[in-house]
Structures are given as C-alpha cells and as structure tokens.
C-alpha cells in the first residue's frame, strides 16, 4: 500500500527533474533568488493553481513547477530553492545551482529584495556569468519605498546589461510588468550582459583555458564561466559538468595541459587555490557594492527600527522562550476551540448521509454483506477521517503558515541555536522541526538547508519526534475526551496547554536523541553556522488561508482518504471473517494484546497504529471501527459518544495518555520513511529513523504504564 512518489509530490527533485511542457514551444523560466525575497510569492501569483507540485511549509526545497501564459507565449515556471550564491554549500543550493547551470532554462528571472539589493546582486552577477538570458526582478519594491530606499531601475539595467523590472509580488497586477518583460526578452534576447572583471592574472589564466574549452567542448556551457570553475577546482560542480558532457573533462589531454599552464601562472603570482576562491568571491562582492552605490540611495538612519524592536521582543533573554511557548499554545488553542463545532457538524452531516445510503441499499434489497463492506466499512472510516481530521488541519495549517509568512520561524531557529549547539547540532534543525509540524516528510526534505551532512542526518533522524498534522487530531481527541471535563473557555485553555506539554515532550526527545546520536553513531563537533533573519512582513491573510487549504490541507486529507478506503475495507473484512469461532480481527488483536497491555494499550489500538503506517490520520477511525465491528451494542452516531465507546472497551485516562505518547513516539509513516530513504540514500539510517522513535515510544509507554497503574 506504499505511496508512489507522485502522491508524495516529490518526483521533481534533484537531477531527475523533469520539465513538464504542454507543448514543445513552451518557454522554460527559472525563478532564482536569495531566500526570503518573495520568490515563491511571484511563482504562486504567476502560476495560480496551475502547479504541478505544491510548495511545502517553510521554503522551496525542491524545484516546483507551474505554467503561465501571456498573449504571446506559454511559459513553464520553475521555482528553485533560494540561494545566496551559485558556489553551492548545501544540498538545496546544489539543486538550485544545477538547474541554473545545466537545466538549460530559456530564461532566468532573478528575484531580488529591493530593501537589500546589494547582497542580492551577488547572485545576479554570478547568474550573468552563466548566461545573458536574465531578467532582474526587483521585488518588495513597496517595502523599499516605505523604508526610504530608492532604486534607480534604468541605471541598474544599464549597469547589468539585462532588463530590470520592479514588482510588488503580493499585488498581482504589478507582475504584469514582469510578464511583459518576459515576452520582450524572449523576442529580443539581451546580448551584452555585464561581467565581473577579475584581477589581471586571473583574466590571463582564463584566457589560457577558455579557447581550449571552446575548441574541445563547444559553446554549450558558458566557456568563460566554466574556465573559472575549472581553475577554482570546484569539485561538486566539476562532477556535474562531467555528467553534462558525459565524459571526464579533466581527462581531456589538451584541456589538462591548458589548466596546468594556467595554474602555473597563478602560482607564479602567489595565487593558490584558497586565495583564488577569495579573490573570485571578493571581486563579485566588490562589483555588487559598486553597482549598488551607483543605483541605490537610502536614508539609513531608521529604516529597520521596527524590525529591531520586534526582534528585541521575540528574541530577548527574558521574553524569547516564553513567547515561543505561548505562541505555540495559542495556535493550539485556536485549533482546538475552532475545530470543535465544525467537527460535530461534519460528523452529523456525514452520518446523516450514511442513513440515506443505507435506505438506498435496503430499497434495492442489497445483500447485507455488501452494505456492511461498503457502508459500515469503507464509508464509515472515510466519514471519520474527514470529520475528525479535517477541521483541526484546516485551522492549524493556515495559522502556522501565517507565522511563517510573518517571518517568525527563523527567529525560532535563532533562539534555539544554543541548545542545538549543545547537542552538537545546527540551529536550522529548529526550522526543519517547524516544517515537521506540517508534515514530517516535508520536514525531512527541508533538512537540505543544513550544510553539514552530519547535522543534516541528525535532523532527519529526529524529525519524527515532532508530531505532524496527521497526528494532531489524535492528540486533540484524546485530550478533549479524557482530560477535560466540560466545554468552555477554561477547559479549552487547559487542552491547549496539555497539547503544548505533549509537544514539549516531543521536543525534549528531539534534543535528547540528537545529543545521544551525536555522542555515538554520528560523532562530531558542531559546524559553523550562519542564519539570515529576514525582515518581518505583514502576512497576506486571505492568500495564506486559500493556499494552505489547497496546497496542504486537501493534499494531506486526500492522501488520508486514499489510505482510509482500503483500510476501512480491510478492517471490516477482518471483523467479519471468522476463523474458528472468533473473527480474524479478534485473532490478531488477541495475539497483540499481551504486548500491547505492557505498554498501556490494547491489541486493537496497536493494530490501528500498524494499519496507520501509511497515514497516521486513520488511527483513531480504525480504533472506532474495530470496536464497533466487535459488536459494541451502543447507538453510536456522534463524537460525544466516542468516549463512551472507548470506556466500554476498557479505556482509562492512562490508556488515553499512552495513546498520546505512542502517537508522538512511534515509527514514521510510510511516506516519511520513503523520503528518508531517498534523502539519506541509506537503508541503515532509514532503519535507525524507524527504530529510534519506536523503541523510545515502547520504553516510555512501558514506564508510564507501570507507574500509572499504581495510581489507578
């Protein structure tokens, strides 16, 4: 019952990127840019719902694609991960660089942040070294004006030798300028892009190598750029170049000799590899500085005062941590209170339909096994999944996206870097944890933002300790049934605090296991770390809600439903096929029961968790179904009666607590496992990612049960 990559939405990463063109004339446009410049906003605004892959929480980690048409042309837009430079450091930067260098886009739009243009020009200049088919899109132009920053677009265009447009991506009509410019650029490709001029010795060295490359390999890649990269001995890039030319280009004798001559020249002038790298980077930065000086004017005195005030509030010694926890609790509180009513309405509605369907079956005298299989099995599980899972997701996802849009998530990484450093890990792991709240698989792909492979592995293996959106409703249901007496404000606050507490338990285990791993199998010292704290931005509430519901909620729910249908059928069959004198389900649950009791669960719950392997969302519905199918003789039509059903099957608060703990601490779902395998490329780490949370869960539930029974 494994999910295909198509369903996971991850089939377009790395080198196996396939551009989906509707017709061969489609023009492929790559959207490049530094992180946090609103690149994805441009992408979303242009492609609307015409996306082949959705964007996941946090940032673009894979190349997302979509289409856009103007009167003149049809475009395929590719949103590549944000990167500061094309001299890649991390896995996701490599994805970006590889697509720009070897993906052969017809056009590259470099999206820049107008409020911080100089830094963005670094990437622009590096892109111009590869191709002249570039448009510079100066985004966030409104914010720049607000901050008294003025960019002379004409001068900038003249300096760079390529078209420049200003946009305010959140205002969709301002993008007309960009699309018009795309049309114009396709019609009249720019020819004379500006280039960074390096010190004479390096230029001489390039002059030795460049003609040889032209002669041996042709002009398919920019030869000046390639000469520089070969001199720079950028190993990961050379690897890609070889793959591109389908040969080991350093083995070419003519080129080898030219490179040797150039290197001797450099060495004679005391430029060794390290110095060469420095000089290359410095030349680009200096050129960017020079251009910015000519084209940007600003009144520096006050332009980011508000951001600094907010930062003092969100990251100070006294308020930083409490606010973080309070915000988390607030998000949970809104989710819990908000999802109560719609859940009840949905379940009433869906079970109302069930009665109607039953009537139809009766009318046609359908055999009772068919009714049982389709209605009591398949339909019911579906109805449970939708009514229990949909409302909390539909509230939690948008709320979380709002925080992300506002710019708060990098502050979490900033606040938590020290604790992570103590565990020999990286503060960016906090960002990947945040993404894990949405979906662990997304969080694990997100780990590409971590430079050091060791720290990235730590983040991947421990990501599952953060409960994803599929597990929240389980936690919420348990809390509201077994730990909170009545409805009302105070009880909803207590629920939110309890849920926060459970999350903190998960975070505690993240730290603990990260620490243990980095002292054992993943030994190492914390590597260096830089993290950008982007400006705070007013979230676009309307868009966030629409996007997070379409991109995330429906996607996750769809996956749950696909799993729920066969799972519902299976459970019904197991409950109704008898072997000897008891059902198959009873056989299985009896077999698992002794073990399950040890960790405070029962056989049915454990079966539900096992069947929930493809999607955690179906755990509670399966438990309900299994109990009902085992012949609990209660009239069961609403959420209110759910607790009664559980209690009849021997649940206590201790059972509920263990269900919560086990939901927090057990194996990752199948999608996540597949993602881990894909990202780590190792069965060993995948197995560890499976075993670590599972064993933790079993041990913790065992301890809690043994202590808990003393109080019962």
């Amino acid at each position, binding site marked *: 019952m494994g999910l295909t990559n198509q369903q996971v939405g991850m089939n377009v990463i790395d080198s196996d990127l396939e551009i989906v063109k509707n017709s061969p004339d489609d023009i492929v446009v790559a959207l490049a840019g530094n992180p946090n410049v609103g690149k994805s906003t441009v992408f979303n605004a242009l492609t609307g719902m015409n996306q082949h892959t959705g964007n996941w929480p946090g940032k673009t980690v894979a190349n997302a694609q979509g289409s856009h048409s103007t009167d003149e042309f049809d475009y395929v837009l590719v949103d590549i991960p944000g990167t*500061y*430079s094309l*001299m890649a*450091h991390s896995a996701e930067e490599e994805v970006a660089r590889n697509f720009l260098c070897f993906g052969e886009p017809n056009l590259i739009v470099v999206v820049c942040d107008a*409020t*911080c*243009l*100089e*830094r963005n020009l*670094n990437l622009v200049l590096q892109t111009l070294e590869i191709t002249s088919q570039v448009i510079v899109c100066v985004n966030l132009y409104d914010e720049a004006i607000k901050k008294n920053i003025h960019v002379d677009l004409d001068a900038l265009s003249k300096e760079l030798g390529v078209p420049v447009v200003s946009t305010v991506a959140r205002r969709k009509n301002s993008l007309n300028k960009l699309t018009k410019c795309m049309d114009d650029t396709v019609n009249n490709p720019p020819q004379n892009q500006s280039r960074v001029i390096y010190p004479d010795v390096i230029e001489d060295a390039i002059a030795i190598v460049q003609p040889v490359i032209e002669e041996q390999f042709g002009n398919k890649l920019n030869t000046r750029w390639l000469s520089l990269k070969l001199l720079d001995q950028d190993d990961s890039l050379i690897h890609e170049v070889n793959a591109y030319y389908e040969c080991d280009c350093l083995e070419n004798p003519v080129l080898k000799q030219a490179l040797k001559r150039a290197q001797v020249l450099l060495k004679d002038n005391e430029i060794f590899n*390290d110095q060469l*790298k*420095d000089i290359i*980077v*410095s030349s680009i*930065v*200096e050129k*960017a*500085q020079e251009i910015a000086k000519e084209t940007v004017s600003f009144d520096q005195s006050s332009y*980011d005062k508000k*951001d*600094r005030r907010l*930062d*003092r509030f969100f*990251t*100070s*010694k*006294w308020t*930083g*941590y409490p606010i973080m926890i309070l915000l988390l609790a607030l998000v949970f509180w809104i989710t819990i209170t908000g999802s109560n009513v719609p859940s009840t309405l949905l379940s009433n509605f869906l079970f109302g339909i069930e009665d109607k369907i039953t009537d139809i079956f009766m009318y046609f005298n359908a055999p009772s096994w068919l009714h049982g299989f389709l209605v009591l099995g398949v339909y019911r599980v579906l109805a449970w999944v939708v009514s229990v899972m949909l409302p909390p997701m539909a509230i939690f996802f948008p709320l979380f996206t709002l925080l992300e849009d506002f710019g708060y998530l990098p502050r979490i990484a*900033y*606040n938590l*870097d*020290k*604790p992570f*450093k103590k565990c020999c890990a990286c*503060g960016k792991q906090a960002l990947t944890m945040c993404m894990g709240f949405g979906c662990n698989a997304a969080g694990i792909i997100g780990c590409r933002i971590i*430079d050091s492979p060791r720290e990235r592995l730590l983040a991947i293996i421990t990501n599952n300790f953060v409960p994803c959106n599929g597990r929240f409703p389980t936690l919420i249901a348990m809390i509201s049934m077994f730990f909170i007496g009545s409805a009302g404000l105070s009880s909803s606050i207590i629920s939110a605090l309890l849920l926060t507490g459970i999350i903190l338990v998960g975070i505690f285990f993240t730290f603990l296991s990260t620490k243990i791993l980095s002292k054992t199998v993943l030994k190492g010292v914390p*590597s*260096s*770390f*830089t*993290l*950008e*704290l*982007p*400006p705070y931005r007013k979230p676009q509430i309307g868009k966030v809600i629409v996007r997070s519901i379409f991109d995330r909620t429906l996607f996750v729910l769809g996956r749950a439903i696909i799993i729920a249908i066969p799972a519902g059928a299976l459970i019904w069959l197991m409950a109704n096929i008898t072997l000897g004198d008891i059902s198959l389900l009873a056989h299985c649950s009896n077999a698992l029961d002794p073990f399950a009791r040890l960790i405070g669960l029962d056989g049915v719950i454990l079966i539900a968790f096992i069947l929930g392997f493809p999607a955690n969302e179906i755990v509670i519905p399966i438990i309900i179904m299994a109990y009902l199918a085992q012949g609990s003789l209660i009239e069961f039509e609403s959420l209110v009666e759910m607790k009664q059903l559980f209690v009849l099957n021997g649940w206590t608060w201790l059972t509920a607590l263990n269900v919560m703990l086990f939901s927090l601490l057990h194996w990752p779902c199948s999608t996540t496992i597949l993602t881990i395998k894909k990202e780590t490329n190792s069965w060993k780490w995948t197995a560890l990612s499976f075993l670590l949370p599972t064993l933790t869960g079993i041990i913790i539930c065992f301890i809690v049960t043994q202590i808990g029974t003393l109080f019962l």
Partner: protein
Amino acid sequence: MNQFENLNCLNIGDKGKILQLNSTGAIRRRLLDIGLINDTVVECVGKSPSGDPCAYSIRGAIIAIRHEDCENIIIDRHPKGSS
C-alpha cells in the same frame, strides 16, 4: 584609539569594520558570500536569549553568526555612535 578585536567584542549598537577573515573552509566561503569581505562595516543588532548566536547587520541583511565563528572575524571597532 581603535583596537583590533574580533566580532564578539561588539555590543548591540556597536559597529566595526572587517580587517581580516581568519575562518577557513566552508564557513569562509559562506561569510564571503554574504559579503563579509575586508572593509565591510558590520553592526551588531541583537543577541539571542542565551547570548549566542548574535545578529549582525551586514550589507543590509541581518545575519546570525555563532560565537566561535565570530572569533575568526577580526574587526576594527568604532566607538558607539560613529559611522
């Protein structure tokens, strides 16, 4: 008189000019990439709750850098208030 110190010597609001980057390897490239070349003026704009990392304003962007990495960034410190 200006003293030669590293980036950690800056308190919030202090500015310094980069004199020398002693970092090596990947972090060196990273720091150069964000524009930390010689003569760049850097301002310390914040400290995280535990005091490490700190946030610096570098060429218009706010970048957090860890204590250990700051040690290798040698600066010429200006007293508060000067540009």
